[in-house]
Each structure stands twice: as C-alpha cells, then as structure tokens.
C-alpha cells in the first residue's frame, strides 16, 4: 500500500514536472482479491494491484486531463507533457473555476489492516458454508467474495494535499433449486472483514431458495410491498443521482423543476417519515473525506460526459454532513463548484455520495407482521429509467418474492416487472425498519402502499 509519504512524494514529483499555470493530481491505488464460485465449486479467482494517476493541467482556463497507471519517471514526464499538450489544444472553458487552495480534510475511519491483509484463504470458510449448506439442501450455489484495500490521494500546485485509506469486503450468494423453480439471494458489505458474517449471509440465501420453490402467479397491479433494504438501495440509486442536480432543475430538465421554472426546493414532496442525508462519517458505511468523485472506469467516460460539466481539476472540498430530504421536504440540491459560484451559494456534495436514509425503530419482521395483504420483495434487478425527468423507472423482482397474508409469509410468488418511481415510493411509505448498509447506501426496509407491478416475469 502506498503510504502517506509515498503518495505525497509521487504527487510532488508530478507537480514539480508541471510547467502549466495549474496542475492537480489524483492518485488511486487498489489491492484486490476475489473469489467467484458457481455450481458449488470455485470458478475464477484472482489478485491484483492497480493504480490510477490522473493529472489535470490548466493553462489559462484550458484544461487537459490524462490518466495513466505507469509511474516510472519517464512515464510521468511523458504524462505531464501530454496533459499540457491537451490543455493547449482545448478551447477556453467558460465554466472554469479556479482550483482550491490548501484544505483541511477530516479523518474518516474506513481502513482495517487485517482486512487489507486478507486474501483467498480468509474467504474460504464463508464460501464453504454456502457450498456445503447448499449441498445439504440439494441446492446449487453461486457467489462472489471480494476484498479491496485502497489509497486515494490528491494534491495541486496551490498546496492542497489529501490522503485517505479504505478497506471494503463484500460477499453475495445465490442459491437455486435443482429444478430451477426456486432462487434465493443475500449479500453483505462491511469495511471490516471480521464484521462480515458470511455463513449467516449464506444461510439467508439458502432459506430463501427453499421457500421460493414453485411460486404462484399473481395478476399484475398495485400492491402494498415490504421492500427489503437491498430493494430500497437499488431503487433509490437513480433518484439520488442526477435528479438532485440544481443546475438540471433550474434549466428545466429534472424532477425538481418547478412548473413554469425554478426549483422545488423547500417543497413537501414525500412522506413525513423520510429524511435522507449525506453522511460520510457514518460508521456503517464510511465514505471519503472529500466531496466529489473518485476515479471512474474508463468505460463509463462517454456516458459520464453526457451528464455535462467541464474537465475536472480535482478540486474537492472537505466532506460534510448534509440533508437532501428532511421530514418530507426537499432541503438541498447539488451545486457543483461552477453552479454554486454562479448562484452565489455554497457548493454541496454529490447526492450519490454516502447516502443514509433514516428509519424507524422496527425490524423487517415488524414490517411483515404489520402487513395484512402484500408482497415481500428481496431485491430488484435491471432498474432503468423510463423517463429520466420524472424518475419513472422500470425493473424486476428477483430471488425471493413472497405473499404476505395477515402478517405472515404464506407462499412464493412468480416475479413481476414494475414501472414505478422512487419518488412515489418515498411519498407512499407507511413504515420503516432500522437502517442497515446495503451496497453503497445505508437504508431501511420500507413498507409502501400502491406499488405498481406492470407484468409477470417468468424468470426464476
């Protein structure tokens, strides 16, 4: 792992090579180990160490960006020169904002040394639990266990420097019946491997597979649903992304655009039970100490661009807590540094970063027990926009859909496709569980009325 001193030395070396007016550097280094299994045996498994060095050189308001993983002196010299060449080619950026000066970033406790040192051997007990548990019940299991240790560092010519280390583990299992009529899934994500109870995750998937066999088909229509945290997390991802962008709202392009112009900031749009926040300090899902994006995959860059915005100069402000929705009311929108300056307000974090949706003091079982007639949803699949502006989405249920009658799970149900908006879901909430981490978010299970299932999906 790259130490603070090594990261600082690498960034300084790059900044010293710079001849541009401004130069900003971001370094991401990751150590990964993972194991996949399927058909009750290991399939592929690997280890790798990767690094991304992202350099933004600015001449006037022209910025050129380069990203490379070669860090020899020759390679860095070539990379800096190329970023400066690209900057000279680029036209002036009318939305340019000056880089930030030295910042004081908060400490976020997100790193666990034993987790960083673990590899395939430490994953085997959890995987064995899934495989032997599945064999006992005559099921077929498939799953994935991964651990990641990473360093993120940034710096610029104006003396800014930040360094952050993080670990993460995630484990997920799918168990299926041999006749293909039942499928169960469960997952967990923790920043400490010791906190991840892989055998317990395996048991949930196995139990769901057994319970979900030979489902009955119901008619599509509107139903009360109990959405498990994984379903909530999946569905909320697209709401807490571009729709919260203040610029998009003000330009008339999003859910938060007011009819006739302006935004819906301050409007009560959701249930009184809903408070949603950015909290990078939440110990269940510690975030990064600055506001902005970590390096993204090359492949996404084309799509990323179409979200708009100008070239990055890695000017990330210290992370803060901020409410997006407070007791039903739209409390904040996302202001980029450019849009914030233009509107004379403070820049805000991205709404996708460190999302926490508050809950109530209930368990998932309490939600089921309180339901007279409804459906329990394990998770959703293939969620896509139907209309980005209204955030109407489509998706499917998967790996465990059950009918609830008089507070009890009574039988498995054939999967549905749904056409529904997470905005409606947050308006139609009746009861929440205590929030837990699911994926990259901390969310409760939700009991929601009038959820729109549009067609039957035969998939198991």
């Amino acid at each position, binding site marked *: 792992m790259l130490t603070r001193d090594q990261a600082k030395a690498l960034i300084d070396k790059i900044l010293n090579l710079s001849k541009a007016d401004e130069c900003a550097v971001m370094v991401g280094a990751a150590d990964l180990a993972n194991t996949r*299994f*399927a*058909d*009750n045996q*290991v399939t*592929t*498994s*690997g*280890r*790798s*160490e*990767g690094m991304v060095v992202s350099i933004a050189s600015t001449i006037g308001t022209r910025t050129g*960006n380069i*990203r490379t*993983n*070669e860090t*020899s002196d020759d390679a860095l010299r070539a990379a800096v020169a*190329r970023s400066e060449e*690209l900057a000279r080619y*680029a*036209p002036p950026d*009318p*939305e340019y904002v000056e880089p930030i000066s030295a910042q004081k970033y908060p400490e976020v406790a997100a790193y666990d040394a034993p987790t960083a040192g673990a*590899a395939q051997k430490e994953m*085997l007990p959890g995987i*064995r639990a899934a*495989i032997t548990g599945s064999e006992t019940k005559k099921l*077929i299991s*498939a799953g994935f266990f*991964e651990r990641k240790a990473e360093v993120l560092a940034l710096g610029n010519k104006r003396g800014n420097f930040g360094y952050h280390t993080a670990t993460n583990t995630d484990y*997920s*299992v*799918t168990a299926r019946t041999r006749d*293909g009529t039942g499928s169960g899934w469960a997952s967990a994500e923790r920043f400490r491997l010791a906190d991840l109870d892989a055998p317990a995750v395996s048991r949930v998937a196995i139990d769901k597979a057994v319970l979900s066999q030979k489902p009955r088909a119901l008619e599509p229509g509107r139903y009360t649903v109990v959405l498990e945290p994984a379903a909530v997390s999946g569905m909320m991802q697209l709401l807490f992304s571009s729709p919260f962008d203040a610029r998009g709202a003000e*330009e*008339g*392009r999003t859910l938060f*655009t007011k*009819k006739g112009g302006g935004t819906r900031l301050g409007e009560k749009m959701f249930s009184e039970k809903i408070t949603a926040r950015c909290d990078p300090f939440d110990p269940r899902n510690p975030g990064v100490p600055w506001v902005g994006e970590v390096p993204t995959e*090359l492949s996404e*860059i*084309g799509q990323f*661009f*179409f979200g*708009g*915005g100008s*070239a990055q100069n890695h000017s990330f402000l210290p992370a803060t807590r901020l409410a997006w929705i407070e007791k039903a009311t739209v409390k904040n929108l996302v202001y980029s540094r450019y849009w914030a300056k233009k509107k004379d307000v403070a820049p805000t974090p991205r709404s996708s970063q460190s999302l926490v949706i508050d809950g109530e003091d209930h368990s998932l079982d309490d939600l089921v027990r309180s339901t007279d007639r409804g459906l329990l949803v394990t998770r959703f699949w*293939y*969620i*896509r*926009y*139907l209309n980005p*502006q209204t955030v109407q989405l*489509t*998706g499917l249920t998967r790996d465990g859909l059950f009918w609830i009658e008089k507070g009890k799970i009574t039988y498995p149900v054939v999967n549905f*496709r749904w056409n529904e*908006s997470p905005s409606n879901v947050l308006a139609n909430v009746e009861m929440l569980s205590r929030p837990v981490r699911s994926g990259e978010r901390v969310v409760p299970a939700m009991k929601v009325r009038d959820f729109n299932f*549009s*067609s039957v999906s035969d998939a*198991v």
Partner: protein
Amino acid sequence: MTLSRRRFLEISAGAAAIALANDLFGLPEINGQNTGAGKPSPELSALAEIALARAKKLGASYADIRINRYRNQLVALRSAPDLATGKLNHVPAVQDMQSFGFGVRVIANGTWGFAAGRLVTKDEIARVTAEAVAVAKANSALQKSPVRLAPVKTYVDRYTTPFERNPFDVPVPEKLALLEKINSEVKAVPKVFSADSVIVARSEDKFFASSEGSRIQQFILQTYGQMRAQARDLETRISRSRSYSPAPVTAGWEAVVEADLPGNGRRIGEEVVEHLSAPPVAPGKKDLILMPGNLALTIHESIGHSTELDRALGYEANFAGTSFVAPPEKVMGKLRIGSELMNIVGDRTLPRGMSTVGYDDDGVKATSFDIVRNGVFMHYQTIRDQAHLVGEKESLGCCYADSFDSIPFQRIPNVWLKAGEKPMTPDDLIAAIDDGILIDGRGSWSIDHQRYNFQFGGDAFWEIKGGKKRGMLSRVAYQSRSTDFWAALAALADQRFWVNEGLTSDGKGQPQQINAMSHGCSPCLFRQINVLLTD
C-alpha cells in the same frame, strides 16, 4: 518501431527496470504493413517466458500471460446557453487514458488461479506468477471437477484490425473543430436547448503467450462519434433528447468522416423539437418497425445474453443471471426461439465488428458460427474450459478480459441478424402496416435475469397508419417475452439496409467487466407487440 536494443538490455539485465508500454508495443501496424512483418515482438516473448517457466516450475499444468496496453481518448463538447445571458457556451472535455500491465493465468491442482501486476519487470512477472499459482492451490480445496481445456492449435502471429488513419494521430484541435461544427448545426434549429457531441478512440495492444506455445500480438482499434440534441419546455416541464449514434466500429478516423455527423445535426435538432410536442402513444398491441439503432440492443439483450453458455450453466447466477435457453441437452438444435426468418450469427471475424479480433484471450483463432438458424437455437457462445460441457470439441472463441488485470471469461461476440433474402425496403415494411410505430435509437431498456421478459423504449417514435409514416409520438415503450417477440418477426429489409450497429459497454461478471460488440441488422417488422404508455 520496436524496443531499442539498449532499453531491452536494461530490462533484461536489471530486474527492477520497468518496461515502458511505448517501447514494447511501438507503433501499430497499418493494414499489416510495419516492421513486425507478421511476427510478435521478441521482447514481449522474452518477458512472457519468465512467467511460463516460473509457472511450470511451481507445478502449474497450464499457464498463459497477457501483456497489454490500453489507450482511450475522449474529446467532447457541450454547447448550451448561459441561463442569465443566453450566450452560447461551448464547454470542452479532453482526456487521454492509458493503462499497461500483465496478467498471469494458471491451472494448478486442476483449478484456475490468476494474478496481475502493473510493473512490467522480470521480478514482478515472477512474483505475480507465483501468486497466481498460490491462488489456484488455495482454491483447489473446493474444486470438485478439474478444469478441462478444449484443444487449440499453436499460433505465432500478429494481427491488426484494418484502419486507414489512426484516430490517436488526428490532432485534438481538428476533433474539437468538428465537434463545434456538429453542435452549431444542431443549435441552428430554433428551440434546441443544448447540443453534445463526443469522439472516442480506444485501442488495445495485446500480447498473449501460453505454455502450449502460442505467441500472438494484436492491435485492436475502435473508433466512434456520437451527438445529442436536447430540448425542453419550462411550461409543461417536458424535456426530450435525440441522438445520432452511428455504429462504433473497429476502424480508424475514416469511420468518423463517413458517419457525417455535421450532416445529421439539423435532422436531430428538428426531431427533438417535434418530439417535445409529440402526442402520447395510445397503448395496446401494435405492429412495430424497429430500425437497426433500436433493434441492435434488443438482439443484444434477448439473444446475445441468453445464448452465453456460462449463463446457461449457472456460472453467472449470482449477478447477471441464468438463461431461458437451457438446459443445453434439451435446447441445442431443438429450441424454437423465433420465426423461420430469424438467422443469427456469432462472429468474431465480421469486418469492422467491435468484437472482431484475430484471436481471443484463450488464444483461439477467431471464427463464426450459427446461434439461431431458421428460428431454432443451434450453438452457445463458448470458451476453452466450457466446450466439453456441451459435447463440443473446440472453443468458439468468445474469451475476453477487459483489462490486463481482469480474468478472461466468456463474453458476447458480434451477434448479428442476417438481412432478409427477398428484396424489401423500409418503405415496403411501412406499407405492410395498418396501425403501428416505427422506433429508432436507444431509450430505456430492462430485461429479467433469465432473459424472458423485456421492456424497451427508444429514442424517437413515428406513428404508422394505413401504410403511411405519420408524425412523431411520445412516451412509447414495448414489452414482450423474448420467444414471443422473435416469433412475431414477420419481415426483414434486405441487405442494402443492413447496418453494423454496435455497443461499447456491456457489463458482466464479478468484479464487473465491460465488453464491446456489434449487433448488425436491417429494419424489421414485428407483428402485434404490446406497446405501453410511459409516464
């Protein structure tokens, strides 16, 4: 240009000396003409020997190493008015990305192991190879049936996807000037709010060496340009976009020129404005004409994914899902997927195909094969460790890893629909419809994890009434079951209208990897498909 003798001696002598991608790969071949003369680089071969020898010494029964360099360049321009002043701002983004390193794959104790490194030195190659063997040995405790590889010939070769002008050599100012011209054409249409355009170039320098003797160097070059117009109405709070996304291809800058992006600017500008006030569709069963820009994704989702052997066998059950085309013994050569008119080919040799290569990442020579013949399922997409599971003697060459540090696995090749054999134009298709919709471009798409139930949108929709194309419609999606949908294929336009559509970022696997491929097709008529009114 290959590695200088001096530089190579440095690497060979000093174990810690780091090889530079530029030195090792040099300039790509241009249409087979370069100093490499059809042979892979001896310097790369020498580095590979370190891994292969080390793996053998540590007890691996098979090993391969890939030493790869990837380059991406994105040049983009967004043109939108400043809300306060109304002045048109052109906001650029220019980015180069490159990565370089090696991945070693071994079989030890009958189990796969993989490890990768980004520092291409003798020491690192030896260390990482040992790590790959350690991973295999650790996991072999849970292995029930040893990995079996289908036989493959030994190849020593060099391959380049054909191109005329390397897009990485086209000066950035020339690209930006083109983007500004494109956006100006779009913005010349009154009521267009903003215009975006982008030019992307991506290349893979790949070197593969296996313990079975193959030494293969390849240069794969992908190029594309895309543009989008946006319009919005603050009173109704409706916003629409319209894209022109000519097929991404394995080719050079010539493909961007041929696509005539500026020449399509006014058209997409006018279409987005019409779409903004287009009436909503009346839902119900309708005949659909799907243009290649829309149908390509439907082919991808319903046929491309469902005929992946790893999905059919449950290897992807935990993430991407399984398949309705299963179990193999009951469906190969038997399952009717669609009408007699449906013929779909899996193909890594297709000229300009995004998945076209000389050899796959198993070192298997590129080939083509029938996936669906006259509506009946014939072959899955396979790789070397799967072929025996369906009783086939050879891999069909569908192995790919998206990076040097990603594990190669089965990915979708170019999967294309043969054009109709009878002379048939898109106008003939329109004339055959009483009540229907013509759909172009990609919108929303979603399909279940066994690939039965799908729901797709589009980028633009036109009403067809009484055999005539009328004005645009809005809020359209179509929903069907894969086999019902393909059974409803009633007519295909002929070869003159076949377009080599492609995708650039299909995701699969854990950890997720991306893949690009082409899904060529001609405009097709589908009868009585369920059309939905979206929000």
